[in-house]
């Protein structure tokens, strides 16, 4: 089972058009919710005025004053209000202030425009530099949402004695997840037995995050809140934390109106107000000896966290831990800060901080190679981590790593050396097309950072059904990545059953335990491992209770399960995460094993630049990765291809343009994601190396492909055009023109 390219469990429903996404759910008598948002970046809300021409008596209206429980969204830090109340501070342009619902969605939309907010405006700060300069203090005493320091050795002692010290500054822009299905929620609140019961169906990655947020919002105990994950039209991190906000909003409207409420964002609203990838700035300083060995590395990594902490502390943490890349270096200092600005809070997006810091590191390595007069291949080869080396946090490499071999494979697949030589000649020609190849080598930590998995203590289970088949109980959600399929394969393998006899239960918090959020490339490796345990426990209990004899056939197993269910009413077995004994982490010193293991990769890109238009075409893209054992090769390749497509988009085209901190190109026409005509075939190679932590030796895969494309592309651009200030993504045609002009104008 593990290693087979089984067909997607929900594939048939998806191609038939019968899969039910949130807005597809038929809800009789539903009201349609809309959100009135602040339209100033910062100020004090003084009043709310309901304009003429709207039958307000027909509307359900919710303001902060109505909130029955706590007006704070439960998250990493509980600092973001669901709604801003009168007298309170508005901190960004898209902050929710009033919720409206009506049975006519067109009228609801018209009413939204008729609400006027009276605001006493305050000066705002809109970018990293303004925040660091404390132009205004908007958060704590220093605008710091989170600060992390990681130190190994002491770089300050190295600078004077090193043969070469090279510094660089790098920037990355915000990026929109652009899941095809916008954020969507349906809520019902019932009053029964003098109690309030809240149910939310939605497009959400983390049912228990929303569950926790609703408990706090309404002040209700656990069993009164139910969250159901509907079929999800993509997420990529964009439905990790935001659903706690809009889920709460839908529930508030349903509670106030006593009717079901649909709250479906249109694309413009979704783009303007929901989370993005954090913009970043990295300053790197590196010391090398005369042969090119890395002696010291200091990095100052800053991300723009927006108006509230939300996920920024953990995004920063992953970015900081990945900042030193996969190089052995005796002296490392990482200073990482998430700063507050008056912008809608960014959040999770595939890669979660690592793409930003790895872009800086992998771009910097190419620049260092040029300055040292070394081939970028050889500079990296001299410095790769090996068995027994320690990373910046002191984590010891316990795998027999062969990063040189991984890199060589990718370079061979794309024909790196031959192409470099060929392009050096052809680029001398008169024509406007210049070609280059470049690559990046990187890693991605699997699962939650540090002690995250221990705190989560995830639970997942296996249940026998009356027909003798097996159902998987986990709160992990299907967002297209293939969770339904991979979990079924893992359990089928553990039980030695055909794939068809195993399926997943609907993700409903009344039915499935908290297997943790569906994030951090953790589902296959972390939850899959728990399911493997649960499945084996399930089988053993059937044996112990006399329903099953080993060895068994699928048929006899099915008979045994049916009999056990008929006899006992219900047969379930749960497993729980156990911290492997050799994994140690200290949250206060940032020392220890940041991740149970890493996935490793080298990505190589070939680009053609047209110097008439400054358009960049990606002509070839090769990915070689070591992700442990691959559970489903076809689905895994799909993850890599899709992640690379997003990485190429981030590297070349996807720019969030803002005014007063608000996205103004918030339409699909103007935020440019790649079409089928913009991408090459992406070549995918897996080097398998079973890792004991995951089921059947699997490691994480979902986020890794986001980390490598941007630096590989910009390294390839340097190959094509020579040394330009290629320090920023997206490197749009406009930006590339400007960089070329810097050189020609001297």
């Amino acid at each position: 089972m593990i290693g087979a390219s089984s067909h997607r469990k929900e594939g048939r429903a998806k191609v038939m058009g019968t899969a039910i996404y949130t807005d597809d759910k038929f809800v009789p008598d539903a009201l349609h919710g809309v959100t009135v948002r602040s339209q100033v970046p910062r100020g004090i809300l003084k009043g709310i005025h309901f304009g003429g021409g709207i039958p307000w008596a027909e509307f359900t209206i919710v303001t902060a004053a109505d909130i029955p429980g706590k007006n704070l969204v439960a998250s990493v830090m509980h600092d973001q209000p669901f709604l801003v109340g009168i007298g309170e501070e508005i901190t960004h342009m898209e902050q929710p202030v009033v919720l409206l619902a009506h049975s006519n969605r067109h009228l609801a939309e018209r009413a939204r425009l008729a609400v006027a907010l009276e605001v006493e405006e305050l000066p705002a700060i809109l970018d990293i530099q303004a925040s660091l300069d404390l132009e205004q203090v908007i958060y704590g005493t220093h605008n710091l949402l989170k600060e992390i320091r990681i130190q190994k050795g002491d770089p300050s002692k190295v600078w004077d004695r090193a043969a070469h010290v090279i510094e660089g500054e790098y920037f990355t822009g915000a990026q929109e997840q652009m899941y095809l299905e916008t954020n969507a929620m349906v809520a019902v609140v019932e009053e029964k037995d003098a109690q309030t019961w809240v149910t939310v169906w939605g497009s959400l990655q983390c049912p228990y995050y929303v569950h926790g947020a609703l408990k706090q919002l309404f002040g209700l105990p656990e069993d009164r809140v139910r969250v159901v994950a509907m079929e999800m039209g993509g997420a990529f991190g964009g439905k990790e934390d935001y659903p706690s906000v809009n889920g709460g909003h839908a529930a508030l409207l349903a509670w106030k109106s006593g009717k079901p409420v649909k709250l479906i964002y249109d694309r413009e609203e979704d783009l303007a107000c929901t989370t993005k990838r954090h913009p970043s700035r990295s300053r790197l300083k590196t010391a090398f000896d005369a042969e090119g060995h890395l002696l010291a590395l200091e990095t100052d990594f800053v991300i723009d966290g927006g108006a509230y902490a939300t996920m920024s502390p953990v995004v920063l943490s992953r970015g900081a831990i990945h900042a030193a890349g996969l190089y052995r270096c005796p002296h490392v200092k990482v200073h990482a800060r998430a700063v507050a600005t008056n912008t809608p809070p960014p959040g999770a997006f595939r890669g979660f901080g690592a793409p930003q810091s790895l872009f800086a590191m992998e771009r910097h390595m190419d620049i260092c190679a040029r300055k040292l007069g070394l081939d970028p291949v050889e500079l990296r080869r001299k410095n790769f981590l090996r068995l027994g080396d320690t990373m910046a946090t002191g984590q010891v490499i316990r795998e027999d790593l062969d990063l040189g071999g991984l890199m060589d494979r990718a370079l061979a697949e794309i024909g790196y050396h031959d192409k470099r030589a060929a392009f050096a000649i052809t680029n001398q020609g008169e024509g406007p097309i210049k070609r280059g190849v470049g690559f990046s080598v990187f890693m991605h930590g699997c699962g939650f950072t540090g002690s995250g998995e221990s705190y989560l203590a995830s639970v997942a289970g296996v249940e026998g059904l009356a027909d003798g088949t097996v159902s998987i109980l986990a709160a992990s959600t299907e967002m297209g990545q293939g969770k339904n399929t991979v979990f079924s394969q893992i359990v089928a393998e553990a039980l030695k059953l055909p794939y068809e006899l195993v399926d997943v239960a609907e993700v409903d918090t009344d039915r499935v335990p908290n297997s943790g959020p569906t994030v951090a490339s953790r589902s296959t490796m972390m939850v899959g491992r728990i399911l493997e345990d649960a499945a084996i426990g399930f089988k053993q209990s059937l044996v112990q209770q006399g329903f099953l004899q080993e060895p068994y056939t699928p048929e006899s197993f099915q008979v045994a399960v049916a009999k056990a269910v008929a006899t006992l009413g219900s047969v379930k077995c749960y497993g729980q995460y156990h911290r492997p004994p050799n994994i140690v982490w200290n949250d206060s010193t940032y020392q220890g094993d940041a991740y149970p293991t890493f996935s490793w990769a080298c990505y190589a890109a070939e680009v053609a630049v047209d110097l008439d238009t400054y358009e960049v075409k990606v002509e070839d893209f090769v990915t070689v990765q070591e992700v442990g054992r691959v559970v489903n090769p076809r689905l895994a390749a799909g993850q890599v291809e899709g992640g690379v497509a997003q990485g190429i988009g981030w590297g070349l085209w996807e720019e969030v343009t803002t005014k007063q901190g608000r996205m103004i190109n918030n339409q699909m026409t103007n935020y440019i994601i790649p079409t089928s005509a913009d991408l090459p075939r992406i070549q995918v190679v897996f080097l398998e190396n079973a890792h004991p932590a995951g089921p059947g030796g699997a490691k994480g895969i979902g986020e890794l492909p986001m980390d490598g494309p941007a630096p590989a592309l910009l390294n390839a651009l340097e190959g094509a055009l020579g040394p330009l200030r290629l320090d920023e993504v997206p490197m749009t045609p406009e930006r590339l023109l400007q960089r070329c002009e810097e050189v020609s104008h001297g």
Partner: protein
Amino acid sequence: MADRINLVMKLNGEERSVNVHPFARLLDVLREDLRLTGTKEGCGEGECGACTIFLNGQVVNSCLVPAVQAQGAEVITVEGLARGGELSPIQAAFVAHNGAQCGFCTPGMLVAATDLLNRCPNPTEDEIRDGLAGNLCRCTGYSKILDAVQTAAADGASR
């Protein structure tokens, strides 16, 4: 204020009639009035292609079609691609090749791919890329979709 119209269509092979506002988006008529929710709204501006349907044999973005322009038309949505529960060749190829990940672009993508193979039974890879360029997918990077269309084309050719 407009008078509502009795919109009559041949929808997925069946005569259907429904009383609607003449300027209602065909997308909304299909999803809300006729409860055919396979057709999706991804952008509402004719950019993403998730709402692609056949209107009189041509692919169109149903979010840009007012109901009155579908009067008397033949309409085929994703729900009309399979025959009696049997997947069409392109649907089957999408299942086999993991052409659908999150599945939200899939209904429109399948309609566009069906149209492409109707017009061009043996497309080159560039023709497929061109034929599907109006359907944005954020999950796949398009490779598995190309695989599926190529397989369906080859199967069609071998029959």
